[in-house]
């Protein structure tokens, strides 16, 4: 299994490098301008406080954009980084088994003494590891840049939000992985997991204004990722049980459907 993970990571090494460059650049370039905003924070905040409620809900129900927590949340962790890592995660979840099957390279892998369970596990670990590498790079860049621009946020909260952001994206990838492992078309895998990701964001955002949306939004992962609460230190940690359960269910579905099905 180690060999499979090693070669999977090796095959994706250039892709990983570009994702790291993208994430690191985005975080650095965004946070480095914080001192400019900090000097005008009070004035900017006043103009944002006049936003209508519906518009505020699209920003997660908060108009705090210029305090240290508000700035980091609105510029990085509320939507930008989850979206970026979500694309990576869905792409990995969809491709790790799906592309091998589509290209027929899976035949050669399974002609070697490797069980399907082992192949599936190795693929899942590879995906989780690649996402972790990029997430850790993003977290380290955030920590370093926060220090440079003197954004006053405890390191523990940056660790916490990095972990939960990782779990959120891992759950998107797990959904894509489970669908591709059942042998469904790759486009279905991307479509469903993107719906889970973006639909979750929209439902959760709008549920502040449209009250009846708050129930369906609870089904989707984004509702359990409360970036502002994490950065403020008021996050209820039991929310991560949702991510763990969703990832476990997707893992089981992947294993159950892949272990004995016909390869295309």
């Amino acid at each position, binding site marked *: 299994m180690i*060999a*499979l993970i*090693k*070669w999977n990571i090796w*095959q994706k090494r250039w892709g990983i490098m570009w994702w790291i460059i993208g994430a690191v650049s985005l975080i650095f370039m965004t946070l480095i301008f914080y001192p400019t905003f900090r000097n005008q924070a009070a004035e900017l905040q006043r103009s944002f406080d006049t936003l209508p409620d519906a518009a505020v809900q699209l920003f997660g129900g908060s108009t705090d954009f210029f305090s240290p927590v508000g700035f980091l949340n609105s510029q990085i962790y509320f939507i930008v980084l989850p979206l970026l890592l979500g694309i990576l995660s869905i792409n990995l979840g969809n491709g790790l088994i799906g592309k091998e099957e589509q*290209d*027929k*390279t899976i*035949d*050669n*892998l*399974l*002609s*070697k*003494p*490797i*069980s399907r369970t082992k192949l599936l596990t190795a693929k899942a670990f590879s995906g989780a590891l690649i996402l972790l590498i990029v997430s850790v790079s993003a977290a380290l860049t955030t920590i370093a840049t926060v220090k440079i621009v003197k954004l006053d946020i405890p390191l523990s909260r940056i660790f916490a939000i990095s972990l939960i952001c990782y779990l959120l994206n891992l759950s998107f990838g797990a959904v894509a992985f489970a669908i591709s492992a059942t042998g469904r078309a790759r486009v279905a895998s991307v479509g469903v997991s993107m719906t889970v990701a973006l639909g979750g964001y929209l439902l959760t955002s709008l549920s502040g204004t449209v009250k009846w949306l708050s129930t369906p939004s609870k089904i989707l992962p984004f509702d359990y990722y409360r970036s502002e609460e994490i950065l403020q230190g008021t996050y209820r940690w039991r929310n991560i049980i949702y991510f763990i359960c969703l990832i476990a269910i997707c893992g089981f579905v992947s294993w159950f459907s892949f272990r*004995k*099905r*016909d*390869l295309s």
Partner: protein
Amino acid sequence: MVETKNNIAIEINDLSKNYHGMNKMALSSLNLKVKKGEIFGYLGPNGAGKSTTIRLLMNFIQPSSGRATILGLDVVKDSVAVKRKIGYLSGESAMYPKMTARQYLNYMRDLHPVGDMKYTKELVKRLNVELDKKIGELSRGNQQKVAIVQALMHKPEVIILDEPSSGLDPLMQEEFYKLLEEAKSRGACIFMSSHILGEVQRVCDRIGIIREGKLVAEQNLLNLASSGITIFDVTFKDRVDQKALKNIKGVQKVETNGSSATVHIQGDLSPLLAYLSKQNVSRLETKTMDLEELFLHYYQKGGGSK
């Protein structure tokens, strides 16, 4: 070789496959035994069920009923153990285009460790594999050579080949056949699907012909000449009485063209000779059946079923 339980490499019992949503069986109650040290050719046109059989043996797809064993191990339940003993090569070998051949072989070796690197090096040399070129930059034939090395490098006891020589030039084909013969002399069993009859006749000891998912013939190629089917090309002075020819005992097939007839007869020739002795025959030629004729015999409408 006498068939005993110990020298059977592949045993297939009532193996069937029905793909979801298809009315017709892709493979229907296949029964087959292939011995150790034997090269078995599995013949049939596209869609006959050759690849389905191989994919079942490789556990890429699940049987609808029946079972198959390789070296006594169940291909479904003991799939991993079976694959320790197998080398597999597909004619449509899909590899990673961005890897070099060397990297690809290292990857495959990590997944199925090779004790003796000397043999891998020998294969690379004999097949003239370009190790440091990216697979995507290699020609179809050169890609196939890489695939052959990965299939044979661990000296498998059973070699399963699905249209193996596609893309190879004649020189490399010859080298590939030598490799198969060497594997056979080591005691390996080779199960090879093909529709290149010349290749099959060149390397195989025995063949099976599959038609519409059913095995319609098994034939030892060493005894093909004595298979019992004799072909008569007869030219009559008068019109050919096709019906009378068809009614002769042992006649399998009659094709007529004007005053000429080609008659396939199995077994005793005397009823046909007796009939011909009463006719005005101007020319008579006989030949024994070769593989191509055997194949066509089973593939033309009304060909025999096992």
